[in-house]
C-alpha cells in the first residue's frame, strides 16, 4: 500500500489551484503528445511522455537535473523559484482508455500509476518544489468535471487571440492576450507555458517582477528583460518606460514577438504595455488604457501606476510625441493644483528641463508647432521621434551622456533620434536589471505580491469557498412556523394573526411578533403573508388577494380561482404588498404604540418579495450563487406543494436566538 503515501490532489483541488493560484501552480500532463493536443488541463505542459524518458526513469538513469530540465525545458534561471511552485502531475486513469492511447500506448495501462508514482517521488526528492502531487482520477475525470478548465492545442495554433480561454472571464485573468501584433500580455503562468509560447512564436519576454521565474521560452539573455518592481503604491515604474520602449521597438523591428508579463498580468505589465501604446500609437494615457483594456479586460493597474502614466503623458507632450490636445484630461491638474504637479518632483537633471522648456513654450504659444512636428512624424514612431528629436536635440544632448544605461540602448538608438528624447523624458533613472535576470531571481526570496495573489481569492475565490453558498441552496424552512391564514381581506388578516395554527416547534418565531404593538401591526397590515399550504387547505376561495406566481403584486381580485392559483404558485409563502385597496385606504399604519419596537423575528413578514425579474442583479456572485431561496423549492404539482413544504419545514433548525 505504498500508494497511500502518494500525495494526491482531487479534481476539485486542482481546479481550485488553477483558479486561485495559477502563478504558483505548474500542471504537467504526462500523457502522450496526441492526447495532450486533443485536450489538456489549461496551461498544463506536456512532459515525461516519451518512452525513453520513462525507461530511464525506471532505470534510475535520470538525474535531478535532467528531470528538471524536462520540465523547464530551456530556462536555467527558473529553477531557483521552483520551490514556490506546486507541481501537479496527471495522466489518464488506468482503466479503459487503452485503445485511445497512441503514442503512449507502449505503456501498459497499469504502469501508468507506477510511472506517476515514481515520477512524483523523484520530483519531490529534488526538493525543487513546494509540493508535488498527482491528480486523482486522471485527466478524464477532471475534464468531465471541469471542461472549462481544459483546452486543446489546436485552437491555440490557429487562433492566438482566442486561446486566452474558452471559458473563464474572471479567475485566472485573460490568459495571454494580444495587444499589438507583436506584443502580448500575460501572467507568470503564461510565461511558463512553453507550448503556447511556441505556438504564438513568442521569443522575447519582459518580466515585471522581482521574483517570477524567467520564461521558459528564453534562449538568450538578450531576449529577456527584467524590470524588478512590485505591485505597490510606492513603486516607481515610469523610469523604466523609455528603456522598455527601446527594447520593444527593437523587438518589433526585428519582427519578434514579445510577452510582457508580471505575476497576474493585472497591474504591472499592463501599465508597461499602456506606456508603450501611448508612445507607439500616440495616444493619451486614458485612450491607451482603454486600448489595452479592450484587449485585456482584466487589467486593473493600481492608482500609483495610473498616476505615473499620466506623468508620462505630460512628458510625451512636452517632447512632442503627443499632441497637447491628446492630454487625457488636458492639464486640469495644472489649473487646479498648479504646475508643480505636472512634473514628477524627482526630475533629476536640469538638462531635462531644458529640454522641456522649448516644448512647453511651443505648446502654449503656438499650438501648431507641436502638431507640425507631429505631422511630419506621422504614424511611425521612429520618424516622429526623429522629427521631435530634431527639435530637441539642441538642448537634449548635453544631458544624454550622463546616465549610464544609455549606453546599452544607444546602440539601437542611432537609427532615430528618439532615443535621445526618451532618455530625456525627465523621469528619474533607476538601476536597471536588464540582462541580469537570474541574479535577481535568486537574490530575493520574496513572496509573490500578495495583492495579485489575493486578487484571485477575493474576486473569485471567496464566493466559491464561503460556506455561504451552500446555505443558499437550502430551502426556506420558515414554513412550519405559524401560518397566517389568508382571509377575505387583509384587514382580517391582521385580526387573525394571533390565531396561528401554530404547527411545529418553531412557533416561537412568530409569537413575539404578536406582541409588537403599533409597529408590527402597521407593517403587517400592509403586508399579507400568504402561505399557500395553509391557504390551500383551509382558506375558502374568498380571499381578495392572490399573488401572482411571480411573486410580488397581488393582482387579481377575482376570488374564485384564487385558491387554485394559490396552490399553483407553490411558493412557500408569498408576501405581497398590501394595498389591496381596502387595506390601503385604512392604513392601520400608525396605530397606537410603544416607543420601542419589538425586534423583527420573522423574515418572511419583514418585507415584500420582489419578483425576480424586476431586479437587474448586477453582482458578480450571481453567476455563481445557485438560484435558490424563496422560489427555488417550488415544484410543479399542486400535490408536491404540500409535500415540499413538509419536507422543507423539517429542515429548519432551531436557530439560536
Amino acid at each position, binding site marked *: *500500500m505504498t500508494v*497511500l503515501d*502518494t500525495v494526491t*490532489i*482531487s479534481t476539485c*483541488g486542482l*481546479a*481550485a489551484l488553477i483558479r486561485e493560484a495559477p502563478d*504558483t501552480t505548474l500542471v504537467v500532463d504526462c500523457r502522450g503528445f496526441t492526447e495532450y493536443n486533443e485536450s489538456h488541463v489549461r496551461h498544463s505542459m506536456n512532459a515525461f511522455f516519451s518512452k525513453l524518458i520513462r525507461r530511464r526513469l525506471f532505470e534510475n538513469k535520470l538525474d535531478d537535473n535532467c528531470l528538471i530540465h524536462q520540465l523547464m525545458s530551456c530556462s536555467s534561471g527558473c529553477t531557483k523559484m521552483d520551490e514556490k511552485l506546486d507541481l501537479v502531475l496527471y495522466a489518464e486513469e488506468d482503466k479503459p482508455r487503452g485503445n485511445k492511447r497512441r503514442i503512449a500506448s507502449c505503456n501498459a495501462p497499469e504502469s501508468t500509476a507506477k510511472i506517476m508514482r515514481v515520477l512524483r517521488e523523484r520530483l519531490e526528492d529534488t526538493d525543487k518544489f513546494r509540493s508535488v502531487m498527482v491528480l*486523482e482520477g486522471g485527466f478524464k475525470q477532471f475534464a468531465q*468535471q471541469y471542461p472549462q478548465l481544459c483546452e486543446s492545442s489546436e485552437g491555440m495554433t490557429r487562433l492566438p487571440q482566442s486561446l486566452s480561454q474558452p471559458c473563464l472571464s474572471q479567475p485566472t485573468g485573460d490568459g495571454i492576450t494580444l495587444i499589438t501584433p507583436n506584443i502580448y500580455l500575460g501572467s507568470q503562468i503564461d510565461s511558463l507555458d512553453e507550448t503556447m509560447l511556441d505556438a504564438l512564436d513568442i521569443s522575447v519576454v519582459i518580466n515585471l517582477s522581482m521574483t517570477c521565474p524567467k520564461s521558459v521560452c528564453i534562449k538568450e539573455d538578450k531576449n529577456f528583460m527584467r524590470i524588478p518592481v512590485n505591485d505597490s*503604491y510606492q513603486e516607481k515604474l515610469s523610469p523604466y518606460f523609455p528603456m522598455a520602449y527601446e527594447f520593444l521597438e527593437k523587438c518589433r523591428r526585428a519582427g519578434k514577438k514579445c510577452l510582457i508579463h508580471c505575476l497576474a498580468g493585472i497591474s504591472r505589465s499592463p501599465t508597461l504595455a499602456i506606456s508603450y501604446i501611448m508612445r507607439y500609437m500616440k495616444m493619451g494615457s486614458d485612450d491607451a488604457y482603454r486600448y489595452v483594456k479592450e484587449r485585456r479586460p482584466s487589467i486593473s*493597474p*493600481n*492608482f500609483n*501606476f*495610473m498616476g505615473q*502614466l499620466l506623468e508620462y503623458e505630460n512628458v510625451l507632450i512636452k517632447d512632442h510625441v503627443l499632441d497637447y490636445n491628446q492630454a487625457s484630461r488636458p492639464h486640469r491638474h495644472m489649473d*487646479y493644483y498648479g504646475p508643480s*504637479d505636472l512634473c*514628477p518632483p524627482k526630475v533629476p537633471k536640469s538638462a531635462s528641463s531644458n529640454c522641456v522648456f522649448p516644448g512647453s513654450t511651443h505648446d502654449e504659444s503656438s499650438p501648431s508647432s507641436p502638431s507640425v512636428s507631429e505631422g511630419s512624424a506621422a504614424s511611425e514612431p521612429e520618424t516622429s521621434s526623429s522629427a521631435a528629436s530634431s527639435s530637441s536635440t539642441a538642448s537634449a544632448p548635453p544631458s544624454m551622456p550622463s546616465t549610464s544605461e544609455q549606453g546599452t540602448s544607444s546602440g539601437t538608438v542611432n537609427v532615430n533620434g528618439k532615443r535621445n528624447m526618451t532618455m530625456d523624458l525627465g523621469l528619474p533613472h533607476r538601476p536597471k536589471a536588464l540582462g541580469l535576470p537570474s541574479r535577481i531571481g535568486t537574490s530575493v526570496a520574496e*513572496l509573490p505580491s500578495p*495583492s*495579485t*495573489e489575493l*486578487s484571485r*481569492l*477575493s474576486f473569485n*475565490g*471567496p464566493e*466559491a469557498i*464561503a*460556506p*455561504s*453558498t*451552500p*446555505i*443558499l*441552496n*437550502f430551502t*426556506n424552512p420558515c414554513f412550519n412556523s405559524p401560518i397566517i391564514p389568508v382571509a377575505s381581506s387583509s384587514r382580517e388578516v391582521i385580526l387573525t394573526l394571533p390565531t396561528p395554527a401554530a404547527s411545529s416547534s418553531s412557533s416561537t418565531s412568530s409569537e413575539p411578533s404578536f406582541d409588537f404593538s403599533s409597529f408590527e401591526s402597521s407593517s403587517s397590515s400592509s403586508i399579507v403573508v400568504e402561505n399557500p399550504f395553509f391557504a390551500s387547505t383551509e382558506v375558502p376561495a374568498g380571499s381578495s388577494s392572490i399573488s401572482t406566481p411571480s411573486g410580488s403584486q397581488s393582482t387579481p381580485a377575482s376570488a374564485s380561482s384564487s385558491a387554485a392559483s394559490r396552490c399553483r404558485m407553490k411558493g412557500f409563502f408569498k408576501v405581497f404588498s398590501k394595498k389591496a385597496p381596502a387595506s390601503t385606504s385604512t392604513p392601520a399604519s400608525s396605530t397606537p404604540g410603544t416607543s420601542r*419596537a419589538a*425586534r*423583527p423575528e*420573522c*423574515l418572511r413578514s419583514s*418585507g415584500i*418579495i420582489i419578483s425576480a425579474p424586476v431586479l437587474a*442583479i*448586477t*453582482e458578480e456572485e450571481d453567476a455563481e*450563487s*445557485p438560484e435558490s*431561496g*424563496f422560489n427555488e423549492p417550488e415544484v410543479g404539482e399542486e400535490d408536491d406543494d404540500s409535500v415540499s413544504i413538509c419536507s422543507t419545514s423539517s429542515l*429548519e*433548525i432551531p*436557530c*439560536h*436566538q
Partner: protein
Amino acid sequence: MEVDLPVHNEYDASRFHQVTIRDPIAGADSTFTIPTRYVNLSFLNAGAQGTVVMADDLVTTQRVAIKKMQQPFVMTMSAKRAYREFILLTTIKHPNIIRLLNAFTPDTSLSTFREVYLVMELMTHNLHEVIHRLRLDHKTLSFFVYQSLCAIKHLHNSGVIHRDLKPSNIVVNDRCVLKVLDFGLARKKNVDTSMRMSDYVVTRYYRAPEVILGLPYSEKVDIWSVGCIFAEMINHTVLFPGKDRIDQWTKIYSVLGTPDDHFISQLGQSAAMYVRSLPRHQARAFSEIVPDTNFLPETENPRVHLTPHVARDLLFNMLKINPEERYSVEDALNHPYVKLWFKDDEVNAPASENRYDQEIDFADKTLIEWKELIFNEVQRYQADHDIFTG
C-alpha cells in the same frame, strides 16, 4: 496492489461512519467520514474549499451544516486560509458570528491527515439572496444593520478586521438573526501596513476607498462595507458596482463627490496626481442615492427614528470617503436608526480570546508545516471537546 488514489485511510468504525454524497452539480461523489451522531446527510454545495452538506445531529437534534475541507493543504494559500478560519471559528464567539458546533478529523496521524470537518450552525439564507428578493421594512433593515455592527464590533474587539464583508458572507435565518461567516481574509488589527495588504482584500464592490487608493487602512473598512450593504438592502442593487479598480473609484466619487485635497494629499504622489486629474464631481444628495421610494413607507416609525431620513443620516456617515470622518463602529451603534435594538451583551460582548497570530499571515510556511499546524489545532479541539456526544 497498484491501486491508486481514493482509498481512504482507516477510521474508527465504532464511532465514525462513512456516507457518500453525490454532488449533483459536478456529478462527483464525496465521501464523508463523520461521527455516527450525524445522519441524513444531504448535499448543500461544493466550493473550492470542499463540500458542504446538511445533516441531522442526533445528539442535539439540530440540523447542522457540515463542511468537509478537502485536503486544505494542497496549496499554501488555501492552507493558510483554512488555518485562519479554523482558529477564528474555534475562538470567536458572538451571537452574530457563525458558531462552530464541532470539528474533527477521522485521521489519527499527521501522515494520514487529509480531511477536516467543520460542523456549523445551519442558517437559511444569505443576505445576498435576501437583498435581491425582499424589500425590507425599516425594522428589519435597521435590525440587520445593527447586527452587522455588533458582529464587526466584536471582531474588532477581538483584534480582527474582517475586510471581506459582503452580502454573500452574511447569513440570516427566518427569525431575522444575522450572522457573519467566513473569516477568510480576516486579519488582526495593527498590522504593519507597509505590506499594504493589497487592495484586493475586500471584494471589490464593498471595498473602502482607502483600500482602493492604497492608503493604510483600519477597522473602518468594515464600516464602509456595512454602509454599502446597507444601501444595497434599500436599493436592491449594488451601490458601487465597479468593474475594476479605476472604475470602482469612479463609481464612488461620482456619487459621493471628489474628496477634498487634504485627503488626496495623503496618497502617494503619483496616485494623488492621477486622482486629482479625474473630473471633479459634486456629491449627490443622499435623498437621491437612497430615495424615499426605495423604502417601505408604511413601515416608518418616527417615534423610534425609523425613517428614511434617519437611515440616510446613518448611511451618510458610514460612507465617508475619508476614514477619519467616517463613523466608527461605536458611533454607528449609537445612531438613532439602530440604537433601538441596543443590548449591552450584544454590543459589548467580552472580546473573544484570539489565538490567531497575524504573524502567521506573513509566514512563509511550507505546505507540510501548514498541515501540521492545522492538524495540531484539530487535535487540540478534539481534546477539548467531546466530538461524539458533546
